């Protein structure tokens, strides 16, 4: 096979196929370290805190949150949109990058997809518990019933129900289909009978025959085709929760593309946050290289710039529309009582990613990690700004109010962070974090002898 001398290698460290299997399967076969236990203890307690706070909310009522007559959504929906956004990178990487034949995705797609699923799980929690009567949440499903009731297909919240459940299902399927050959590998390497049996069940009898591979390849491509539009549709629909309303600051046609790029932006940031740690802890530096980080940074700067343009377009449209409410809403965002949230959002999402134009910073792991945290924070504030600053001062000044979260809302958010990391910690212990089969496929596509020798 021809090996390009110029292209940076995707996998470093002169790996053999066997070595790849061994190294990636190591965390599953080995014993967990103290750090892992400490980690899961921490995240587990966060989950517990979240559960207590959710229980308290359901028992006492939404009054335990800081919401009020004017601001009906606060941290709850902010977190929902934030998590959904984070859940965009995985499917983008595995579906859209697959269709675009980006081979570098193979090192990160597995963990990114897992992250997507966990993020969507966290996200899905919020629409449920923010309801006044969560026990009746099944009312949102259009099931035939004796009361002759039907759902309201005009409501963007209903579209959310379909969009998110479809997205979750397809993402899960896609992720699992990709996992099957690797589960087969793990099964074969397991020594305990029980584990062998469990992985055997999970691998659906994968033998690695040519027929299996052929089917696997085709279903992957089909699912990629299905998932690709979903990446765009989910956050478009989430954005319509706001865009179809009449509230100044929400009622904006730019929202769907703006939300989608924001979602990919935040998703990649979260992937970076996770993987920069994971590669170190699991000794996967040769698989997830600085080159990968740089590629992701490039996507971040692209989507971050789109988001920045969207912010400025919104401001322009507010002025250009001549609508006093619209103008006030945006003036109020930048200079009103929540100005600090707006400027956190602006500096984290628009200004800081621009530093990635410098190659040095783009390839710096420390910088990338800090930046990814900044973006995570900035994107959370973007949703907070959109939701709270638009609601708290809308049409009638008589109803203007302020919003401050309570310990309960903060606790639930910490709980979802805990859930997310708990699931991720469990994931790295039971499934290969990197798609073994796929990585092997790209091992030889670029050589070790590039002109730009390893500098990391």
């Amino acid at each position: 096979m021809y090996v390009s001398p110029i292209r940076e290698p995707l996998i470093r460290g002169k790996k053999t196929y066997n070595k790849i299997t061994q190294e990636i399967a190591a965390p599953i076969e080995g014993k967990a370290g103290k750090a892992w236990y400490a980690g899961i203890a921490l995240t587990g307690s966060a989950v517990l805190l979240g559960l207590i706070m959710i229980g308290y909310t359901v028992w006492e009522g939404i009054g335990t949150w800081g919401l009020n007559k004017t601001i009906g959504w606060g941290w709850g929906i902010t977190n929902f949109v934030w998590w959904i956004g984070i859940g965009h990178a995985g499917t983008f990487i595995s579906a859209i990058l697959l269709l675009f034949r980006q081979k570098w995705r193979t090192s990160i797609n597995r963990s990114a997809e897992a992250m997507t699923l966990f993020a969507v799980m966290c996200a899905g929690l919020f629409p449920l518990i923010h309801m006044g009567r969560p026990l009746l949440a099944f009312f949102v499903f259009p099931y035939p019933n004796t009361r002759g009731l039907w759902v309201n297909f005009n409501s963007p919240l209903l579209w959310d129900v379909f969009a998110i459940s479809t997205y979750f299902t397809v993402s899960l399927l896609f992720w699992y289909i990709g996992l099957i050959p690797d589960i087969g590998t793990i099964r074969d390497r397991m020594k305990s009978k029980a584990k062998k049996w469990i992985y055997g069940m999970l691998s659906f009898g994968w033998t690695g025959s040519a027929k299996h591979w052929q089917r696997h390849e085709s279903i992957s491509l089909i699912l990629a085709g299905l998932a690709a539009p979903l990446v765009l549709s989910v956050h478009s629909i989430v954005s319509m929760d706001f865009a179809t309303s009449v509230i100044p600051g929400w009622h904006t046609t730019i929202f769907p593309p703006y939300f989608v790029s924001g979602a990919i932006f935040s998703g990649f940031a979260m992937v970076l946050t996770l993987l920069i740690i994971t590669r170190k802890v699991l000794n996967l530096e040769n698989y997830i290289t600085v080159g990968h980080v740089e590629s992701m940074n490039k996507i971040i700067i692209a989507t971050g710039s789109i988001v920045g343009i969207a912010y400025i377009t919104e401001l322009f449209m507010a002025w250009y529309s001549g609508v006093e409410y619209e103008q006030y809403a945006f003036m109020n965002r930048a200079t009103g009582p929540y100005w600090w949230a707006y400027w956190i959002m602006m500096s984290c999402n628009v200004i800081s990613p621009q530093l990635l134009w410098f190659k040095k910073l783009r390839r710096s792991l420390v910088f990338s990690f800090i930046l990814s945290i900044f973006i995570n924070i900035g994107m959370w504030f973007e949703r907070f700004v959109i939701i709270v600053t638009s609601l708290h001062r809308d049409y009638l000044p008589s109803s203007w109010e302020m919003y401050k979260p309570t310990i309960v809302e903060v606790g639930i958010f910490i709980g979802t962070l805990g859930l997310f990391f708990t699931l991720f910690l469990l994931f790295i212990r039971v499934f290969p974090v990197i798609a073994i089969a796929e990585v092997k496929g790209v091992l030889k596509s670029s050589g070790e002898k590039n002109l730009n020798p390893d500098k990391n």
Partner: protein
Amino acid sequence: MKKHWKSLAERKNDSSPHPEKEIPKGNLEQILDIFDGYQSATKSNRRDFLKLCGYSLAISTVVASCENSVQKAIPYLIKPEEITPGKANYYASSYVNGSDYCSILIKTREGRPIKIEGNDLSLVSHGGTSARVQASILGLYDTNRYKYPKIKEEKVSWEELDQEIIKELEKARSKNEKIVLLTPSIYSPSSRQIIQSFQQTYPNIDWVQYDSSSSSAMIQANEMCFDKAGISEYRFDFADLIVSFDADFLGNWLDPVEHIRQYSKNRKLNDGNTRMSRHIQYESRLSLTGSNADYRITVKPSEQIIFIAQLYNEILKIKAKENYELREASADIKQLAKELWKKRGKSLVIAGENDIDKQVLVNAINYELENYGTTLRVDKQLKTKQAIDEDMESLLSDVKSGKVKGLLCYDVNPVFDYYKGAELAQAIKKLSFSVALNKEPNETSVLFDYISPDNHYLESWNDLEPRTSRYSLMQPGIWPLFDTRQFQSSLLAWMGKETEYLKYIQNYWEQHLYPLQAAYPNFTSFWQHTLQKGVFDPMTDSVFDIKFSNQKMDKLMGEISNLSVSGGVELQVYESIAIGNGSLANNPWLQELPDPITKVCWDNYITISPEDALKLELETSDVVLLNDKIKAPVYILPGQAKDTVAIAGGYGRTVSGVVGKHIGVSVSQFGVYEKDHRKSLIRNLNIQKTDEKYELAMTQTHHSMEGRAIVREATLSEYLNNPAAGNEIDHEFDDAGIYQKPNFPDHHWGLVVDLNSCVGCGACSVACQSENNVPVVGKKEVIRAHEMSWIRIDRYFSGDENNPAVSFQPVMCQHCDNAPCENVCPVAATTHSSEGLNQMAYNRCIGTRYCGNNCPYKVRRFNWFDFTKADSIPNNLHDIAEMTIDLKRMVLNPDVTVRAKGVIEKCSMCVQRIQEGKLDAKMEGRPVKDGEIKTACQQACPSGAIIFGDLNNKQSQLVKETSSKRNYHLLEEIHTLPSVSYLTKIRNKESNQT
């Protein structure tokens, strides 16, 4: 068939020659027999078994699935003739609380009063009510009431109590010891007669009347000027120019319900009427009246007298009469004098303060302006306030000196609201004989030995004469809930007479009032008809011949000319619109009713001008120390006069129920006694800032309209030039949508609010709360903006910070035909009715609050907690006001669902009333008449600012108003197509600048 036997006994029985006795059957078997057509003898065992199986399966299913607690609805054994379950009965009656009077209808359902409505037939209140009247229904079900007679905290029977009291009274009579009967102003003719005969029976008893907010200066000023003691009757509807010196006549001065109607009547504008009165208010605190004035001038209370005197002098000058040497009047006063003279006979000058000099001067001005006989009259009097301050002062000194040995105290609470209440409390403790005839414990009655509990007014009979020859009856809506007896019956009992007060009233009416009319041939029919109407207005001749005389005028004017204005800070104690003198402090509806101006509820506070606040470095919710005695939070109120502060009395009750206790601070000690009159103010107040902070519960925290066309207004001259002034873009966007406007073939219900009539009193808010079972949330939740009111009154300030223009706007669900809330609900819990109503299906609601977010008017209210006990999760009730106990739940309107935790609710445009009106019309086979259906807010409104009707009925009053050039929709540019619309506010000003 071969017969098998089981036991020896059976075998033996079998062989017995006697026929077998049938064993009595159990219930179950009897039921089963019914299925068998009583042929129990022939039934087969297998069928029985199957039935039993089926039956027990059915029963076990039913029993197992019934987890809800059993609710008993017991039908009448003998149905009372007048009660149809599900149908309301209305009884004409009267609301009385001290000097507050209102003619009302009691709405009862299945025998329990649930709502108060105004009585349209009354020539005093004309169907209007106030917030206090609306809320008074809840007082009936107050757990804090006395439940039985007591002697020294011991429960006794009425016989025992009567015996003891008669013994004491007789002992005092024999020793000729002075006993005082202390009451509020009694304007019931029968009660007055009872008190007189009580005094005849016990000649040692003195009768003292005490009004917590006194008007004795007005009474005596009239005596001085016209030789006729009493309060004049005011007719604001005949006045084209009203000048008020600190008289809050729309809020608390005399009878606001009547004044609001008169006032707004002369300010209503339509095609036929383009005149409106002009109202000028001189005051220090921004009162409800001042906020409605066309011109408002801020003055310190102590400066007012100079202005009044100057005005009087200027009028004398215009009339070229002998005038006085005073400081040169300002151009404004001179101008005002000219205008008043121009409007002579159609103007009215009033003063609020209980100050004899001001009242005399005001009388003189009105006399010079020839207003007597038109805008006010002395021959017709307001009788709800009769107390003379001197009486109370001498009572206090007599009790202190021991001259008075015993005190009978009815329905007053001087220990709490008298400025020398603490002294009085000390003195009362020394009395040998004290009887309290109150309906609930208060600061005064707890000091008394004998408690003879009075009925609530909804349990009482009475007759009233609130104005000269305007009679009104009070009839009970329910039998007394507790072992109580009304005051009049108690007095009758202690005289040893027949205690039935109803008979007494009837006798009185037969003797004194029946002869005044000729319409009814006998007393029975006269009584029946009058009782049904609730009011009786005999025609009486009155003479307008009055002569003004005051020999002391020279002396008074001399004093005023020498008056120097003091520099100190002056504090005024006023009555808040909701709580009044504090007797209603235990009413959570009133506690949660925000003040019309400050929008603060559940507290009293010091209002201070922005200028003074800056000087003292104070911010709203800072705590200040007043005269080193009382701590109170500060509220910076634009429009408060410089160097003045004000605070509401009636708060800080220490003896009250769960709701009213320790709400706010008591400031009754702030009072002075000058020239034989008690004034609720002090001068040279010392304000000290403390480090403490105190959070106030406000329902509105932003006070500016931000230049948005929310309350649209114009001046009268602009309006006369162009009826659409201030409303240039009305209905411009009605056809802006790309979809067809919805069509409502039968009815299209709508509401119009005349912002020019609304004075902002808040009666509608409480009426709505009562009608629609709107929960009470409490102070903490109001601070968190969790209040539930379905109709709120938005108040905006504009213009000068030191004397702002005020606009009020009642906002309820706008029932948009293109409703933003409806299309966002995922479960279709809020939908549009075929009659144009935006309706809520509470059972369907899952509480996403998306509708609330998307409502541009922010009228949707979410049940943040379990406020009503309707939630299925236990132990999570948030009920600070005991509103969910069985007694208080009796006030709930059975026609309106009680909402559970986690659902959205909002104004339904009183859909239950619409439905009732439609059904009534259907029963009579006719279309619904215009004006037949009234929403609760409309019914309660004393100014007639709210009109409900059918937008499809082109003849209706509603359509007449909506086709006015002044009509507009709130936020119509977002094309929500509301069914509620507003009429612009018109100010009778020269230009639109403040």
